[in-house]
């Protein structure tokens, strides 16, 4: 029922506004449609994504929270668990029924007790510690494993890009 999904999204929005977790801002893109959110995620400190502010889109199904939302970054990202089109591949966003990778245990998957906040926090920890077993972006996974220096450079340029600071010094 869309009605209860709406109420729950409203409650989550309220909670995220009143007690915003460190480095996260999220809310509906427009008040017209509560089923599409935009979030800003700060790159975790001490990692190559530190300092960046990454915009992402969350699209909720009408039976939320029974089904998970879909999340994708709207900026350029280079990360083993993010597809080149920005879609985020983490287990918390997968419904218990489907298992695209075939190795996730079901207790990491979506359940109605999860929330936008938990998703975004997991995404932050994913930025800090990529899971190089899941190959959403094979090039990034390979680079992360074999050429960490190069990976850090790419991440650095992404951070600058999201902040609108030109790379040339």
């Amino acid at each position, binding site marked *: 029922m869309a*009605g*209860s999904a709406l109420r729950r999204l409203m409650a989550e929005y309220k909670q995220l506004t009143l007690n915003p977790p460190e480095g996260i801002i999220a809310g509906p893109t427009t008040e*017209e449609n509560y089923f599409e959110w*935009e979030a800003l995620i700060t790159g975790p400190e001490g990692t190559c994504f530190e300092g960046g502010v990454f915009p992402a889109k969350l699209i909720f199904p009408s039976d939320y929270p029974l089904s998970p939302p879909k999340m994708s970054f709207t900026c350029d990202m280079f990360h083993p668990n993010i597809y080149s089109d920005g879609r985020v591949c983490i287990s918390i966003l997968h419904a218990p029924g489907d298992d695209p990778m075939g190795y996730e245990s079901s207790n990491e998957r979506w359940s109605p007790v999860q929330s936008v906040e938990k998703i975004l926090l997991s995404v932050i920890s994913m930025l800090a510690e990529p899971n190089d077993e899941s190959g959403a972006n094979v090039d990034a996974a390979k680079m992360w494993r074999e050429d960490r220096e190069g990976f850090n450079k790419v991440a650095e340029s992404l951070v600058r890009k999201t902040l609108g*600071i030109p790379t040339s010094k």
Partner: protein
Amino acid sequence: MSFMMVDRLPVPKLSTYISATVLSISAATYYSVKYSFDASHESNSNIQVNEDPTKTDPMDVYYEQMLNVLAFMLQDPLCFLVLCNGAICSIVMIGAVIQSLVLGNLRPVEHVQFRERLWNWVIYKFIFMFIILKAYTLDKVALWLFWYSTLGFLHLMTSLCKDRFEYMWMSMGTGARVNWKYIHMSVLLSIGFIFSLLLLNFAYLVGLTLSKHIFAFMVIECLMLAGSIVHIFLRHYIQLFHRNSINHTTSPGKLIYYAELGLDLGIRVMEILHYSHAIIWTSSYLTMAGFVIFMHMRQLISDIQKRLQKHKNFLWVHSHLEKNYPMATAEELDTNSDNCAICWEKMDSARKLPCGHLFHNGCLQSWMEQEPSCPTCRLSLTLGHNQSMPMNSTNNGGQETLGTHTHIPHHFFHFDGSRYLSWLPSFSVEVTHSLRPTSQIHTSQMETMARQVLQLFPHFTMHSIIEDLSNTRSVDLTIDNILEGRLVAPQQFVEEEPVIVETVPIVNSVEQFINTPTSTSFNTNISEPAIDGLVSMGSQFSKSPDERENMLRARKQAMIMKARQRYMSKDGDSSSKSD
């Protein structure tokens, strides 16, 4: 209608259509006036001698001539069709007026769906009219044109209202303006309902005099229309009630569930009866029309099966919950002060799972239909569960269309008649099955799907993607279409990311700020404490939507600003160190 034969047929613009109709009518009138005048002139020349002096009133002559012209127009088949077209055009105009009054501008998705429905209706009923009903004489054509255009008009209005209702559920907005919209739409739907009853009456008066079969066709069509209107009412008014009710009861009443199930199944069974009646009556088992109708019936039957399976699952979960897990006692509710973890609302009554977690009965029920485990601790709740029970059959339509590849939306049929009898023709038909567009692909889902595609191919417009999606009904297929070049990117880039628009002024200011020689000192418009305040501003959650939206935007900008300053200062530090 889940039958699509013609892809992407353009609907002519309303203004073009109206002007073409007006032109054709005036041409027909001119032609018939001229013709009938000639004819009357000939006959008049004989009678003129003993003309009655009392009959010279110019108005009377004029009137008589009008009648003559009209009678001529009704007899001449071409003129007659032009008149019919004029009548349909006036219905279309009424529809356009009602749409602009009640619904305002259509959103692009609604537009696409509307167009698709319109073509489906026209093509389907055209087949029906000429093949099943064998309307070859003018009066029959007139009758059926009137019947189907009225019915189609009502159907299209109903589905537009339905789409709009669904869209309105997506927004939180309440207040006078939204309520007005609801009232407008309900009035429109009620008028539709009254009209469907009037049509029923018409069917009784006209259909029964023609034949019992025709009467049955008409009655079933009316009932289907009335049923779908009642269905919309039921669904949306329950939701409205559900949303506005303060003491929130999580499970929609049993009565409502069964009413909805009954209507869902009833409308489909009626449709099947309707088509099988048509096929048996005209014994068109082996014709093209019969084939098309059989395909449609197959789709309907699988819909019914799915619905029944869902219901079976619902019943199983229901009895399973009732049997195995007791309701929590008042004490347990007292000690557990948390809200229901599924809907985040207060629990007045709850069901207790063996792991000790409490949930609303209704919330738990809808989760269990999907996955039989405790949402909090994932304890499996499949004790004594019959393994053959399909657990994932309840995923909503959107999930199915987005996720699975097992559904094949295109069927290609090749009938090689010459293999059976030498004179039989051979033909191939591609039938595109839509997943019951009216019930399963909601506008919002369509938009969601379109956005997914748009993220992959930002140079396409939302509109063209939605158009393609409305044909393919699958993200994967649309992506295939794009990759294989079947969908051509438009020249100009229309859709713009709102994020970019928002950040543009800041980027400019930062660039200026970087370009200034004193880039290590921070002279931005907003002082750092103010930014800090904005970022951590969490104490307010405004009641007004606009204020909320502005506040969120301000917070986002502040966050970017702050990150930028921090980055620059660190950058400055590191560069000064390296110097």
